[in-house]
């Protein structure tokens, strides 16, 4: 009914967070990373992966809801808000399916972070062993 709203809200939060981190980084920590000469993907970039997944998914799901007539391009936008019974059902769906969608997407992003960490570690250890040789 409106499950896509939950991941869409998370996407907005992660967008703001990654922008804030990016701004902070240009002021302080970027130089430290260059000095260390270690392969490290900035966290703001990693956060953008999550934003892209959430935003991309939410946009296509929004279209699906439009297709099924669950959202309309005029106020109040969500057809389920027209009567209290449907509103309760919509909120229940958001709390169950919507939250699960956001959690699963975040969990998959967690796996991506783990893989990225392993790749970074391997690249750094290979670089260190080359330097020592």
């Amino acid at each position, binding site marked *: 009914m409106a499950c896509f709203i939950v991941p869409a809200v998370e996407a907005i939060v992660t967008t703001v967070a990654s922008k804030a981190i990016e701004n902070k980084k240009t002021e302080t920590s970027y130089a430290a990373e260059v000095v260390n000469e270690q392969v490290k993907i900035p966290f703001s970039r990693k956060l953008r992966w999550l934003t*892209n997944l*959430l935003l*991309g*998914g939410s946009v296509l799901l929004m279209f699906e809801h439009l297709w099924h007539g669950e959202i309309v391009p005029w106020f109040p936008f969500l057809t389920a808000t027209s009567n209290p019974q449907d509103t309760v059902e919509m909120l229940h769906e958001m709390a*169950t399916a919507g939250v699960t969608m956001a959690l*699963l*997407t975040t969990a*998959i992003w967690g796996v991506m972070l783990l893989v990225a960490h392993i790749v970074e570690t391997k690249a750094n250890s290979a670089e260190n062993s080359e330097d020592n040789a």
Partner: protein
Amino acid sequence: MTLLVTVFAAVISTVIWYKNAPDDEMKLSVLCWMFWGSSIMWTVDAVFEYVEIGAEFFRPSFEDMLNDTYLGISVIALALVIWIVVLLIKDPKGAVKKTLLNNEKNKK
């Protein structure tokens, strides 16, 4: 059916992206993110539906299947339009800019 169509789209776009990686001049990553994001979300939808209706989930009516396929194809069309818009706005090859500037020069 929508989930299946989207998963196929996600896999195909990822394969094409990987073929050109790490270059992403055509911004194919935009398509990958959209298709994988929606595939994850529709998987959750599918699991919830399966829990609700059980094995009936795997026996949709012909009409439902047709409508879902039509929706899946429409979703791909929308994603492709978004991708083209992003590509033209970001213009990584500078082709749009060059074309516009050339047209202005020719006018003069």
